[in-house]
């Protein structure tokens, strides 16, 4: 009860605000809290109060930190654009759409294949054919296992052995979220369905629910028991049973007046949602029905990202406004 009351008193204070030259397209935090924000024109802000770079790439699709001092941006036309590593010019990898980093491995998902770079980009990548078409989602499942979702299906890829471990027939993958430590993956597709995949038996995926439109914003709670998804102006929270089946009645919340355009969930369970009217709601895991704090940006919210601690939230808008918000749960004396 004390914790709930504390969460009710959550505060969100803008810690810093910056203006990027164009709409904020991507926001990524490093493990130690450095910020990378990439604008639609390819320019980027690196670190707090850092310089905004000239345009680095014409069509940034995804980005990741390589440690604390280097970063990589995936661009289907330009390949991999890096900064802070011993690499002259972009790494030519046509069709690069999604990128992920884990323990020195850089996994790049592209058109029907995955390229795995070990310890830098100086050597040729190990390329694995996935058969999933153009990649629209890529997530680390734990250890050497990655999930790649594309136009033609979902593949679980072992990057150490260089092979596809399992192919799952879920065409038109739109978004994915995983809790690899809990052995659970959730996938949304173009038909508006959400699939729960238990890694112990990936072929027995459960189709949880059917939305009218594709669910682009999807997250699995840190305890793996709740799926949060946004469709139009509606935020839906589904409880999942141990067998992956969904609760009969999900919790539906209509707190946004506009269409939800961004969503991110922190490791501590706090959730942030933003809409096309510039409203950002922050939600406590203990009080799912009501937002505990609200912010306003100029224009549609295009990017949201929590840092590792779950105390700082980066919010980007279509006007280029980038705000870092310090959130604190309240305390009861």
């Amino acid at each position, binding site marked *: 009860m004390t914790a709930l009351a504390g969460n009710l008193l959550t505060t969100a204070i803008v810690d810093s605000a910056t203006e990027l*030259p*164009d*709409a904020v*397209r991507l926001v990524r935090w490093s493990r130690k809290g450095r910020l990378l924000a990439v604008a*639609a*024109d390819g320019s980027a802000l690196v670190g707090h109060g850092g310089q905004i770079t000239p*345009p680095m790439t*014409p*069509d940034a699709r995804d980005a990741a930190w390589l440690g604390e001092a280097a970063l990589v941006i995936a661009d*289907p*036309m330009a390949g991999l654009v890096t900064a802070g590593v011993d690499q002259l010019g972009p790494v030519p990898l046509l069709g690069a759409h999604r990128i992920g980093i884990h323990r020195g491995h850089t996994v790049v998902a592209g058109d029907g294949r995955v390229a795995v770079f070990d310890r830098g980009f100086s050597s040729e990548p190990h390329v694995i054919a996935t058969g999933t*078409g*153009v990649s*629209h989602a890529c997530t680390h499942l734990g250890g050497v296992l990655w999930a790649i979702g594309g*136009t*033609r299906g979902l593949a679980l890829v072992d990057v150490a052995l260089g092979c596809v471990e399992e192919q799952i*027939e879920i*065409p*038109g993958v739109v978004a994915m979220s995983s809790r690899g430590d809990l052995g659970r993956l959730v996938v949304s*597709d*173009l*038909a508006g369905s959400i699939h729960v995949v238990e890694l112990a038996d990936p072929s027995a995926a*459960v*189709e*949880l*629910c*059917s*939305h*009218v*439109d*594709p669910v*682009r914003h999807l997250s699995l709670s840190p305890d793996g028991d709740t799926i949060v998804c946004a*469709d*139009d*102006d*509606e935020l*839906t929270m589904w409880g999942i049973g141990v067998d992956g*089946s*969904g*609760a*009969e009645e*999900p919790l*539906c919340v209509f707190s946004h007046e*506009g*269409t939800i355009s961004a969503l991110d969930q922190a490791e501590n369970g706090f959730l942030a949602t933003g809409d*096309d*009217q*510039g409203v950002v709601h922050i939600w406590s895991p203990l009080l799912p029905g009501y937002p505990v704090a609200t912010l306003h940006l100029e*224009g*549609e919210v*295009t990017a949201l990202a929590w840092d590792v601690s779950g105390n700082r939230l980066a919010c980007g808008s*279509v*006007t*280029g406004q980038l705000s870092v918000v310090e959130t604190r749960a309240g305390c009861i004396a």
Partner: protein
Amino acid sequence: MNRRTDMTLRSHGESRREHSAGRPSVPITVLARTGPATDLIRLLAADVETSVIGSVETIASAGLLGLVRSGRAHATSPDVASHPDRCVCCELRVDLIDAVRRAVLVRTPPQRLVIVIDQLPSSGEDPPRSSDEADVVTALHTLQSHRELERLTHVDGLVVHVDGRTLSTRLTCGITPWSGREEAALAIADHIAVSGADLLTASALSRVMRWLEGINSVGRILRASEGEEGRQGLFDLRAWHHPHAKPVEGVPTIESLRLRGAARSSESSVKTIVLRRPDVLDADAALGWLRDLVAEEPCRLLRVKASFLIGGGERLRVCGVRSTIRSSAAATPSPGRARGESVVWLVGRGLDPHSISNGFESIERTQ
């Protein structure tokens, strides 16, 4: 599978059609080309407030690669997904969804988007079945069925470019001018731009125009012209949205179309069916009939337009592509028009005019 009744109640037809706050919906012109059409692409992209989406080859051949760097051109390649897998009527161009979002979600959105679809030569008369094909109907269906795109943009019109010389030569030689995708694109176009018309004799041009009018009874068919005037002529089309974009008198009846369709080609070719009734129809029944028709013929139906005369001096207007239809009720423009008739245009392959006509005739009148 658990289903949520409260969510599924909101169907595509009743989706909230709100646009981003303070940001106008960006009009999209889809240009389908059957040849190089580089002049037409350059003409459309001439305005600095226009962005272009197309394949790298299209952008490069039109000399517009420089626009990629400035964010005014977006390269894409067909990435087609369908649900269930390999269902043609549910196909979506996923790459277009991404490209349009990227083009529009910028600080200063373009005043207009031009999407260039390359019409690859088809090998036979069969309608396209492969997911790898970048046909115009799939592109149009994607733009009109995806809610995210509907929020940010709207389709202004489909412009199909035709080389008048090629068409004239083929007609003279007795060769079927086009089949499959090209014929479908011509039939559902809001505007057919005929290039090279200056090089044709009057009789040859007249023959070309007549042939095109036989295929497309809704859109405008004009010579491609240059300059600002020619560019503006390609905008604000929406022939498939307006109930009477063309004089009704010019529209062939169901009987003449049936005869022409039988004489011209096989069952796989594209037909336009126009249905009329002078009655005041029950709005729910009319919409229900059209929805049933779309549900029964999703793979055959390409584009639909309807204007139902309903009670209270109002019309129910419907437009759609493949399995997606949108409806809206509106007052008739003038009291005189209220006594008009309900008209339905259907373009598709292998449609049965008699069963469709019978269904239309069986719609209940308003009480």
